[in-house]
Structures are given as C-alpha cells and as structure tokens.
C-alpha cells in the first residue's frame, strides 16, 4: 500500500489519471494527517466536506476520461485569498467572521483546474511577518526541529502555514503570496520549493492586499516540477486586475527538464554580506559547484544598490499598506468595537483588531506619506527602487539567471528574534531586491546546516522568464538530492 501523502504532485497526478489511486482516498489521507497534526496550527480553517465533495467530482471526471490539469490534487489555500462561502481571515482579528461573496481569480482558476481545497492555511497577519508569529490565530510550528533539542521552530513567513503544510505532508502543494520574500523564505525554512513569478503574472483580484505594487501570488510544493504544474494553473491575464499582464502562460513543466549546459549564472558580490553565516556561504558555494558541474557558466556580477533595498522596501510596503488597510474600519464587515463617537469607534476597532506588527507598519507608512515627509521618504524610496531594478536589467544582459542564498539563516526559535522588529526585517535581505524589481524568483532546498536544518538557494530570472528560473532550480534540485521529509515523518 502506497503512502498517499508521500507522493509528489506530479506522481499523484499520473496515478490519478491511470486510476491507480482515487482522489477521494488521497484527499481523505490528507484530511487524516491534518487531524493528527493540528498542533502545528498550519490551517486556520479546514474544509473537509468541501474537500471530499470536490474530490468526488474530480474522480467522476477522471473516470470519464475528462481530466482537468490538476484534477483531484488536494491543496492548501493561503488564507489571504478570498474564497466564496469560506471564512477568510488574513490572519487578523479585524476580519472576524468575514465570508467573502466572491472568489479570488487565482483560487478560482485552481478549482477550475480540478484542485481540491483542504482548507485555508495560516499566515502572518495581513502577510506582515517573517516567522508566522503575528497571526491572530496563533503561531505556526515548523515540522522541522533541530535533532539535538527537538524544540519547536518557526516556519518562516508570511506563508508559514502553507510551508508547514507542504513540508509536513498536510497538503500536496499550496498557494502562497510573496511581497518581500513571503513564499521563498518559508520555503527555505521548511525544506520545500517555492516560486514567486514576475509581478503581473498572477492576478491580485481577490487577494487581501498588503502592498499592491509588490504582492504576487505563487506556488509552494515539494519539487520544482510540482511548483511548475501549480503555477501553470494559477497564472494568466485577468481583466479585473489592471496590473496583470496580457501574456501567454508557457509550458513551465517542460522547462524543468531542460539541461543547463551553457546557461550563464550570475553570482552577485553584494549578497556576500558582512558577518554572513559560514554555513549559508557553504551551501551557496555548493550550489555554484552543482551548476558548474552540469555545464553552466558561472559569472561574478555586481548589483551595487542591493544594500538600499531593505530600507526602501520598509518605506514602500508600509506606505501602501497604510492606505490598503484603511478599509478595515468596522463599518461594513469584520470586527466592530463601539466607542462613544465615530472617532472612538475607529480607534477602538483598529486598536483591537490589528496586532502590534500591523499597527507598527500602518504607523510607519502613514508617516512616510505625510505632508513634508513624502518627498524625503516615499519618493526617494521609489527612486531607489528604480535603481535596484536598473541594476538587475543591466546584469541580465550578461547572465541568464542569478544564484543567491534565500535567507540569511535557517529556521529559528520563536523567542530568538521576535522581540526585535529590525532583526526580523533582516530575514528578507536576500529576497526583497527581487520583489522591488518585480522579477521571478524561487527557493530550492540546497542542503542541511550543521544543526540539521534545511537551507534554501534562490534563483532569480529576467522579467517573464520563469522558465529559466525553473530550469536552473530543477538543476539544483537534481544535484542536491534533498530529502524533503522532516525528522519523525518518514515512518508516518
């Protein structure tokens, strides 16, 4: 008897089509696993009835030989995507009881492709965080532990619930959203793959907004090919999102199998930061060797404005968030805490409804946009953003893809960085420049550090060139031969 939750998405897809396994059994196996591991808190809302009904319908189509691209594959949906008739929380108290009367474009496309909804995965509140500890619905636990002490670690964030669910076999794949690293950093922390496509690839319609010019949906799964299969179903032009691009969706799954001989891979000097963990550096060098061994050409490159990316990001993202979150005022939906008058109702609703990190960013953003400070902060940050994008554009005339570490550390314990917001922001140092430039990037597991925790490698591509990112990612994956199963799960 095959362990259903150990199958990759691609493998399960083949077996479903061959009718070796049934979608209902696969779905039930995941629902059972979810019930066993509620202690990880990977899901905010589980939707077992909906899942089984969708699986049933998928089996009927599969039986009839009318298989859709992802028919019968059970996935987790980050709880930032609005789902019609299913509670959508964005990890916040302020959206208490909010059930959208509409479906986000990306989740709708996945259901149309036949994917089965297991539930809504936990996340940092409004996707603001890098450890999944700011959720109103409680922190998420990483399925990985350090074998030496076996104490719980954070899964990274903000797509921490999705990452933990994929790594811990509580879904076959999941959606994420990435504003400054929210897919790639948790993928690195949990030893899975995660891709953020080019800004404009996936529609933002129906995704609760954090920072509109940076937010982008993407896929998280246990293999590069699984990510490609998911992304093919998620991407595409949407007339409901003015920033979505009218571009055809290529065959990304095929790209995963193409060799990398002759591919020019850039290694940016600026990512070798002062005080860098030698183990991160080691896995990076290992990645370079792997690609070189497969015939890629390694080139040293420079992205001179990299060091300004994090400060610029922490102006632009909060500025947009301060405006995007203004609609949560207790008037129409979600939480309302009544005060003596209108101003007090606003203050109490938002004071109780938003957690500390969200309030911090709303304050920073409001300040950065205020009269007398707009030019010095927001406008200047936009200019920096332009310089960072220009760095990449110039570089991509000489290289095809860039290889860097995904995050400056492995997963940490909840208390280790939580008290210092700036230390937390530094988690995004390698992922934020790509987000500011709108480029596609993915994290692929590169190996384990000395404490036995996964470390990810990041591949960054030209705009709209997800194909090369996936192709190079698959090459790293083939060489790394990474065992994606967290300790203790092998025998499950």
């Amino acid at each position, binding site marked *: 008897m095959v362990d259903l939750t150990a199958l990759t998405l691609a493998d399960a897809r083949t077996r479903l089509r061959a009718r070796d396994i049934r979608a209902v059994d696969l779905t039930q196996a995941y629902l059972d696993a979810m019930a066993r591991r509620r202690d990880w808190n990977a899901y905010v809302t589980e939707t077992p009835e909906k899942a089984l009904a969708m699986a049933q319908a998928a089996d009927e189509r599969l039986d009839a030989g009318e298989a859709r691209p992802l028919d019968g594959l059970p996935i987790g949906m980050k709880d930032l995507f609005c789902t019609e008739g299913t509670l959508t929380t964005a990890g916040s108290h302020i959206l208490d009881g909010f059930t959208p009367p509409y479906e986000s474009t990306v989740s709708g496309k996945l259901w149309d492709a036949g994917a089965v909804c297991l539930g809504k995965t936990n996340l940092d509140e409004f996707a603001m965080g890098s450890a999944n500890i700011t959720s109103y619905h409680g922190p998420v636990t990483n399925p990985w532990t350090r074998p030496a002490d076996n104490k719980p670690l954070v899964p990274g964030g903000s797509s921490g619930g999705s990452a933990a669910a994929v790594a811990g076999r509580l879904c076959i794949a999941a959606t994420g959203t990435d504003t400054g690293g929210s897919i790639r950093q948790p993928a690195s922390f949990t030893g899975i793959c995660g891709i953020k496509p080019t800004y404009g690839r996936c529609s933002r319609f129906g995704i609760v907004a954090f920072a509109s010019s940076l937010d982008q949906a993407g896929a998280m799964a246990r293999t590069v090919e699984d990510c490609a299969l998911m992304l093919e179903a998620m991407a595409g032009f949407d007339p409901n999102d003015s920033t979505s691009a009218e571009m055809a969706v290529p065959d990304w799954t095929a790209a995963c199998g193409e060799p990398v001989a002759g591919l020019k891979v850039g290694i940016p000097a600026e990512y070798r930061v002062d005080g860098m963990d030698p183990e991160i550096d080691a896995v990076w060098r290992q990645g370079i060797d792997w690609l070189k061994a497969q015939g890629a050409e390694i080139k040293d490159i420079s992205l001179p404005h990299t060091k300004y990316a994090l400060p610029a990001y922490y102006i632009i993202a909060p500025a947009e968030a*301060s405006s995007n979150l203004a609609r949560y005022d207790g008037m129409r939906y979600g939480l309302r805490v009544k005060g003596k008058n209108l101003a007090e109702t606003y203050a109490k609703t938002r004071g109780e409804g938003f957690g500390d990190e969200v309030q911090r960013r709303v304050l920073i953003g409001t300040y950065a946009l205020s009269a007398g400070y707009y030019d010095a902060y927001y406008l200047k940050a936009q200019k920096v953003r332009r310089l960072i994008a220009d760095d990449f554009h110039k570089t991509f005339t000489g290289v095809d893809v860039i290889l860097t570490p995904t995050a400056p550390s492995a997963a940490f314990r909840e208390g280790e960085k939580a008290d210092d917001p700036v230390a937390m922001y530094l988690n995004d140092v390698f992922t934020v420049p790509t987000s500011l430039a709108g480029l596609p990037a993915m994290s692929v597991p590169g190996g384990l550090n000395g404490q036995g925790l996964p470390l990810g490698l990041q591949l960054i591509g030209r705009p709209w060139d997800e194909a090369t990112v996936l192709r190079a990612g698959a090459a790293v994956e083939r060489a790394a031969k990474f065992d994606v199963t967290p300790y203790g799960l092998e025998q499950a």
Partner: protein
Amino acid sequence: MTYTIEGATGTWEIVCGLEVHAQVISTAKLFSGASTTYGGAPNSQVSPIDAGMPGMLPVVNRECIAQAVRTGLGLRARINKVSVFERKNYFYPDLPQGYQISQYQHPLVGEGTLYLDLPDGDSKPIGITRLHVEQDAGKSMHDAHDDATLIDLNRSGVALMEIVSEPDIRSPDEAVLYMRKLRTILRYLGTCDGNMEEGSLRCDANVSVRKAGETDFRTRCEIKNVNSMRFVARAIEYEAKRQIELYETGGTVEQETRLFDSQKGETRSMRSKEEAHDYRYFPDPDLLPLELDDAEIEEWRSALPELPEPVEPMQVSFEAMQRSPFGAIPALREAQESKPEYTGPKPDPDREPGPLEQFAVGSLKIVGTMNLPGKGWRAYVSAPDGVVYTVAPGEYMGQQYGRIEEIGPNGIVLRELVPRGEGRWERRKRTVEIKSTGG
C-alpha cells in the same frame, strides 16, 4: 462692467475661482461595473469594489474617461495623454476604501479657457486650470434614524469631473455666468446633466478680496456647498463683505474652509488650515498610469457635436510606454520630464526635514524670541510633543516647507511652499505672532 465694493477705507475688488464637481453621464461607475442611475433603493447599486471589500481592485471604465476628454475638448483644454490616478486618504463612513481615487499631480486635462457671455455682448475669458477625474463618495443620512447615521453607497464610485478655474472671476454675477456657461457646455456635450438639485453639479468657491489696484492675491477662503445658481452669487457676496469688514476693523483673514448656510445666507467656519486633513496623496499602485493615444482622442473629438467656436486642443505628447512591471515608475518620471522645464520654486527632496516639520504651524506656539549677542535672533517654539524647540532663521517649521525668513520681537516670518498641482509650487509668506493667550 467693473464690480467693486466701497468700504470705509477705500474701494475693494473680489477675486474668485470656482471648483465645480460635475457627475459624469455614464452607465457604469468609474472603477466598477455597477449602475449609476439616480434614485435607486439605498445600497442597491453597489459592487464589492464600491463597498471597499477585501481584495477588490479598480479597473478604469473607459466610457468615463471619454466623457471627461470630451469635456476638456469643449473647454479648449490641453488633453494630457498620460495622467495618473492617486489615492486621497481620509476616514469617513461613506468612503468605504478609506481613500478616494482621484488625480493630483497629473490630471487628465490641463489648461483651457471658458468664455463668459457678458450682458453687453462682450465676452470675457476665464482660465481653466485643470479638469481631473475622481470617484464620488457615498451619502451619509444623519436624520433618517434617531441614534444612528445610515450610509447609502449607491453614489460611491460614480465618476466625477472636478473642473477648477483660475481666479479670474471678479464679481458674483460673473460667477453665475461662469456656472451657466459651464452647464450649457456640459449639457451640450452630453457629459453631465447639470442638475444642481440632484447634486450632479456642485460648486465650491475660493474667495478673496483686495484693494482696487493691488496686483497680489490676499488670503482666500474656500466656501463649500454652494449648490444652486442663486446661492453662488449670494455666498460670494456675503463672503467678500465679511472679509472686507475684517480687514477694515484691523483683523486678518485666516485661510479656512467655510460652509454656506443657505437658510441664513451666510458662511461659517468649518475647519481652519491647521485642522485641514493631510490627505497623504500617492499614486494608486492598483492602477497603471492612464494612457490615451491620438487615434482614440481623435475618435472622441470627431464625434463631438459642433461647438459654437472651433476647438483646437493643445496636446502634450509623451513617449508611449511599454507595459512592464517597472512601468509605473518610468511613466511618472517621463511624464514629469517631457513637460516644459519647470523652473519655479519647489521643495528640495534631499533636505532632511527639521524636527518642527512634523507639526502643523497652527499647533506650534511661540513662547518667546530673543536677540542673542553675537548669534542673532532665536525663537522658542512649544510643540505638541511637549518640547520647546529653539529655532534660528534659515531653519524650517510646519508641514508646508516653511523656511524661517525672519525672527523679530513680534514673532516669526515664514516663507512656505504650497503645491499648485502638476508639480508646480507657489511661495507664500506667513507670519506667526507671539500669542499672549495667558495660558
């Protein structure tokens, strides 16, 4: 026809500009597919976008843009082929998103002219500063319920044109002629029904006065809610006389927003400049810059009904921009760069803001000034954070880039920079006196 008011100290002249909000005739709202019919049952014409639901995104309704361009052509105005929607942020229950999508630095339509038909057969040109497109808010109904305000969002998201005139109007009668002519043009073009009773045409008046022969403008007040032809003249006349009386009795006019009370026929203070909202405008990241091509404009122009005088709009041409994830930023930059070089005053973005620039000038209190031997004048300013700051000439205070020009025994003279739109700025002198409020 020169209109003047005789005061005790001499002859006065009115200086007035009008800001008109005209509801666009269109079947659907500016950024959603919802209907715009007037008089529907409350909240029956509301899409999730208009209600500010999570994750909802605006998409520009081209029909509304065409109507605004037609209006611009009718006003012989420059059509900007690139314009930018920005967010104007403030909280109010009838504003579901917590911001209004409007245009600020880069409006759809630039300078134009409207000709008044004077009774003596002459015509007088009134400059049009700009026309921009924005969302309307919903309606708050304060009287419908004993202890609650009810909100109707049917109007939320309906397209408005804000048409701003230059301060070229010199009498209450000219203001009425302006409104009549504008309404005629709008109705003629079929872009707004001009119905003031239903609120599809609304008017705010900026009024100041000056002595006959003066060339500079004095401080103006903005009069809100002037919503019939009859009230336009009455509100301006009342406000001008109020300001003249203030000047003649030794007072000063404070820049403020005033509300016209049509029952009493007078204006009363709504909020001072210090209480004015900081709207935190910034380009809406959900929308790309709005681009028009020549063929499109030509198509709209050729379908216009024949106007009394031929229309030759000036056009600014911008390089067409490729759509890319990096588009929003270069688009803005190019739009700024391809305009005739602006050489007037502007704030220096590289200057670090001073500690007193986080406060409105009105919230700052000068507790004293002193001429220090060998150093010169210093002022001691008490701020809302409880700290008393020492400032010297050349330093900055307030939220309008106020550079301290002079400190003396009576207070501080500031030179502020006030945005005039489209990246232009205006210098304004402002005196802050030591107040002996006894507190």
